[in-house]
């Protein structure tokens, strides 16, 4: 198996960084010797990784590859057993988390109206009621929920709920947007809307890390791809190169639609 020993990323440790200043961007994720062990099982084990600080990075891999755990680790929601994570030379923690927003696979919505879910996040920031309302309207319009502002959030359809979760994530004006399979089992219209919003955010200088195991979606979104398998980073590189010619057997098998164990 190619993953018996930790594989080095295909690219050098500089990843996509083009200039030394890039290392200071809030989206410049660097990690070394990252490991997460739970009940004696090594669930994540990545020797070294440096991400392009601007691109949309898609994390791919079969179920159980550790994609969600990876996202939670770099967001600082769970502490690693060992290793070192930093964003723009700032150690991963509350400070970096406050510049990021995460959208979970299953949206977690407050038991309140759609607008109140947005306002809950907006209220953390200063601003008059009128300003908050204007921003709320803007965000809801962006995700196509303007007409449902006063509805109970938990009565929305799955796709609408996820769009609301995305709007709430954007309400914090994050420098980094982390998405954990946000469109799994959603209606196509919602998938398309979410992808468009993600790409638009990326165009506005937001670093995006998007976990998916939908190959078509990865092709549509990815600037670069990290492929995880059994908790290890099998390969990382520009999307074009990855899709044209994956270097690992696991990624080849995965892309060709074969079952990867």
């Amino acid at each position, binding site marked *: 198996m190619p993953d018996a020993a930790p594989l080095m990323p295909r690219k050098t440790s500089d990843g996509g960084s083009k200039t030394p200043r890039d290392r200071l961007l809030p989206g410049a994720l660097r990690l070394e010797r990252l490991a997460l062990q739970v009940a004696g099982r090594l669930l994540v084990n990545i020797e070294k990784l440096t991400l392009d600080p601007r691109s949309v990075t898609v994390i791919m891999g079969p179920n159980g590859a550790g994609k969600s755990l990876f996202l*939670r680790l770099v*967001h600082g*929601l769970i502490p690693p057993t060992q290793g070192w994570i930093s964003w723009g030379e700032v150690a991963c923690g*509350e400070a970096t*988390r*406050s510049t*990021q*927003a*995460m959208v*979970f696979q299953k949206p*977690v919505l*407050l*038991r*309140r109206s759609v607008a109140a879910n947005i306002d*809950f*996040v907006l209220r*953390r920031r200063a601003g008059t009621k009128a300003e908050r309302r204007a921003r709320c309207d803007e965000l809801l319009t962006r995700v196509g929920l303007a007409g449902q502002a006063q509805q*109970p959030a*938990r*009565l929305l359809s799955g796709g609408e709920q996820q769009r609301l979760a995305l709007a*709430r994530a954007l309400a*914090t004006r994050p420098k980094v947007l982390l998405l954990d399979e946000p469109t799994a089992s959603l209606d196509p219209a919602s998938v398309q809307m979410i992808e468009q919003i993600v790409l638009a955010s990326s165009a506005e200088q937001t670093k995006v890390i998007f976990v998916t195991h939908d190959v078509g979606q990865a092709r549509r979104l990815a600037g670069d791809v990290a492929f995880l398998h059994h908790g290890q980073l099998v390969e990382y590189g520009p999307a074009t190169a990855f899709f044209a010619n994956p270097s690992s057997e696991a990624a080849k098998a995965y892309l060709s639609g074969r079952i990867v164990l």
Partner: protein
Amino acid sequence: MQDFAGAFGLAFGLIASGDADLFEIVGLSMRVSLMALLLSCLIGFPIGALLVVRKFFGRGIVIALVNSMMGFPPVVIGLLIYLVLSRAGPMGWLGLLYSPTAMIIAQTVLIAPIVAALSRQVLEALQAEYDEQFRSLGISRGRAMLALIVDGRYGLVTVALAGFGRAVAEVGAVIIVGGNIEHLTRVMTTAIALETSKGDLGMALALGIILMSIAISVNLGAGALRAIAERQAYA
């Protein structure tokens, strides 16, 4: 043997005739218990939320303590409050013994732990759902507690009901600190105890029927509230 039909008749007769003493007693019962409930919720909800949000050292012991306080016998609580509020006691200068305020204090001491322990259980499930999202959003502990209480409101109504039920049905503590003084501290339960001891079982039963009717209507009201909440997927 007293007959139950007679007691029911007496109960409805009392209500229909607008008996002033009866309404005074029912009113005081409600006022004391609702006030105690309000204070208990103000104390108990934040404690319940705090126990859910903060995983501090010794939390397990605090939870065990609060849970066991739920089972404290009301007479013991009443006796302790009596000793504190008695003129000879440390807070005697307040002159609160044998007043509705003393009864509110006793009932609050009695039901605040119930509200705290039950709301912790209700909020625990909510916290499991919200925790990661809140940490991701950088929500402070204080705001998280508030959000849990607000979003758990329909579950907490049930908690409050349990507390109210215990407060309004309680006799051991309020008879010690209230003294069952007519027109001052006589509430439904102490009036029932008095009528029973006078051997006027019909009147006692009539009061009991009224007390139970109040309990049932309060619960029905809360059930309706819950049904509305569920329709909005807020429960």
